[in-house]
């Protein structure tokens, strides 16, 4: 794939060179076709770097758009970090994107953790429980189910496929109220089970694992293992599972984020503040400001929000390698 980047062989490259010449200034105003570069310009660029389709030269408009999106994404985060350092008074009186008079971050954090008899710590532990049991269980079930559906032929497989695809299309929010009435009938509403059990079902995770297994586990490998006398369980744990790690991590991340941020389901199910996850707890604090006779704690809500997103950010940074390879699964035909 070594080609002359200035050559007229492809439209893409022609455009690249053209826009480069326009922004270059040295070539500005040259009336000829893009191929006829001023003689000094082309060698200089080639000396610097050869731009190929796999390594294209940077596009200024694209960089600008990316920059805008980056600012758009990071600005709320920056606002959150900055305002977590302010007390209630500064919060209302100082400019939102700059520090207030006092740097209160450490004080805010300690007050967030101790306010209301340490409710925030309790909510964090609850959230961890829901994530560990809910997202962990959902991942386990998705891996087992996806593997089974991909590897074994059985009657009704197409029907299962249709149901799974259909279930992906139904938002969990739409099922929350019926689920509440069902759990209430079973006497499980207002208990941690009411959040954990619905979180165990992840049709999208199942579908993803199904597709991933079909890609990542060659049937020849399984046949070879069977011929060598390995049992099905042994094949799954010793041969398939290591091949499925990227997909598993992807599903785990998906369901972790979903469970960590879940708001509507616990809102309907859980009335007892001792079992609130962080999302509900922060909302309860925020409601204090809307209560006559209540105590507005905007500073603690903002610090609490920062503490709430921090673990998810860390998990993402640590596992993003798997996340990316998982998302790309199936996009390239080998």
């Amino acid at each position, binding site marked *: 794939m070594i080609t002359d980047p200035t050559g007229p062989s492809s439209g893409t490259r022609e455009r690249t060179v053209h826009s480069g010449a326009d922004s270059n200034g040295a070539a500005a105003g040259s009336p000829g076709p893009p191929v006829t570069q001023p003689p000094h310009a082309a060698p200089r660029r080639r000396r610097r770097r050869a731009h190929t389709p796999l390594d294209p030269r940077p596009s200024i408009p694209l960089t600008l758009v990316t920059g805008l999106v980056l600012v758009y994404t990071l600005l709320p985060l920056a606002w959150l970090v900055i305002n977590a350092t302010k007390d*209630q008074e500064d919060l*209302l009186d100082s400019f939102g994107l700059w520090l207030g008079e006092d740097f209160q971050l450490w004080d805010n954090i300690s007050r967030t953790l101790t306010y209301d008899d340490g409710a925030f710590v309790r909510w964090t532990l609850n959230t961890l429980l829901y994530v560990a049991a809910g997202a962990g269980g959902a991942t386990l079930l998705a891996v087992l189910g996806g593997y089974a559906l991909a590897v074994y032929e059985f009657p009704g497989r197409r029907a299962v496929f249709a149901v799974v695809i259909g279930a992906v299309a139904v938002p969990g929010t739409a099922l929350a109220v*019926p689920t509440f*009435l069902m759990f209430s009938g079973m006497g499980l*509403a207002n208990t941690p089970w009411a959040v954990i059990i619905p979180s165990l079902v992840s049709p999208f995770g199942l579908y993803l694992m199904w597709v991933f297994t079909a890609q990542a586990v060659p049937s020849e490998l399984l046949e070879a293992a069977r011929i060598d006398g390995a049992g099905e369980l042994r094949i799954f744990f010793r041969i398939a599972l290591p091949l499925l790690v990227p997909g598993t991590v992807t599903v785990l991340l998906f369901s972790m984020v979903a469970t960590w941020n879940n708001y509507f389901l616990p809102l309907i199910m859980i009335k007892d*503040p001792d079992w609130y996850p962080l999302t509900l707890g922060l909302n*309860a604090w925020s409601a204090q400001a809307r*209560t006559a006779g209540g105590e*507005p704690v905007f500073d603690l809500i903002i610090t609490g929000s920062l503490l709430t997103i921090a673990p998810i950010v860390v998990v993402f940074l640590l596992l993003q390698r798997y996340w990316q390879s998982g998302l790309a699964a199936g996009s390239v035909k080998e």
Partner: protein
Amino acid sequence: MRTKSRRRILSAVAATCALTLGATACGSPDPGAEGSAKDVASALESGGKVTVWAWEPTLKKAAADFEKKYPKVHVELVNAGTGDKQYTALQNAIAAGSGAPDVAQVEYYAVGQFAIGKSLQELSPYGASAHDQAFTTGPWSAVKYGNGIYALPMDSGPMALFYNKKVFDRYGIAVPTTWDEYVEAARALHKADPKLYITNDTGDAGATTSLIWQAGGRPYKVEGTEIGIGFGDAGTAQYAATWQKLIDERLLAPITSWSDEWYKGLSDGSIATLSIGACMPANFVTGAPAASGDWRVAPLPQWTKGAKAAAENGGSSLAVPKASKNKALAYAFIEYATTGAGATARVSAGAFPATRADLESQAFLDSPFPYFGGQPANRILADAARDVGTGWSYLPYQVYANSVFNDTVGKAYVSSTTLAQGLEAWRAASAKYGKDQGFTVAE
């Protein structure tokens, strides 16, 4: 598959039912025998657990004191949401047949809705009728429906004018004593500094009905299932004319109450007054700490010069849902928290009393508010509690009516619809809903 989808339809129907507030068809069946004062005493002796859904902050103290006094009783205080969020949760739990609390906080405007929906236990057999002299008239009439007592008043919200003295002094504007002066003050303030507004308002059903109440309007008449709705009286007309001036001349800050922007406005003085209930001081202290010392309390401006009319805004009661499994103990708790020593302890923790004894106590009247520059603000608020106009009632489905306020009256704030037209649309919408629910609505 077929049974599954049928089950789904059934549960969807049940969910719709649960979400329809006040639908009598959804009321739970009466679980049986009425109680007595004797039951209450024996329940206290045998102990047990009382689950309380409430958001009022001083109940924490009442619960702790109650547990200390009766060690066998455990009070579990749950914040299931504020206002209509809690009502939805309560209605869902009642419809689902499990998970309803033993005690629920219900605002005065919503008591009728729950009482007529047969969701609340009538409390006179337990001894509630013995307290009919203990509470001030406004709250006491709000917890009665027909001949029954469906809740005990927990606090009250007589209205006053909270004003930023610093802002008024800076521009040499006198504190208004009538609503005409109030409009003048609004013009003067906004002219002196276009960033200043006399108050904020984006359309608030509670505030509107309270000001109509103060002006002498009585738009709702309720007798059993016969309802009259009419905004045609002189009081309502006077309110609408005055407020229309404030809207037309853009003298109201377009900020919604209880938002963070609102607290910012209270803090920096750009919202100069609030006509609001007596529960407000606590929110000032923590929500706008920077303005400490700037604010004062004055009687609400009057519709006729020299008059002394007041109204209630907010305030809530404690009720026992019929679905409660331990009604006698639940009643014991609400009686403790709303009367006698329990009420007094909550008042010293910051609640505004609905009990006559606490309202008249010298310690209460004399206590200075450092936030209001040491002003003994309770005197003004207690006077207002006495001057609350009688004969007011809310609709038995006021929760619904308030939820459509913004679709009707709210238009007056953002379009060329006038307030009078908005009120007429609100009346029509409320009347239609009432008829659909089986009430007889007189026009």
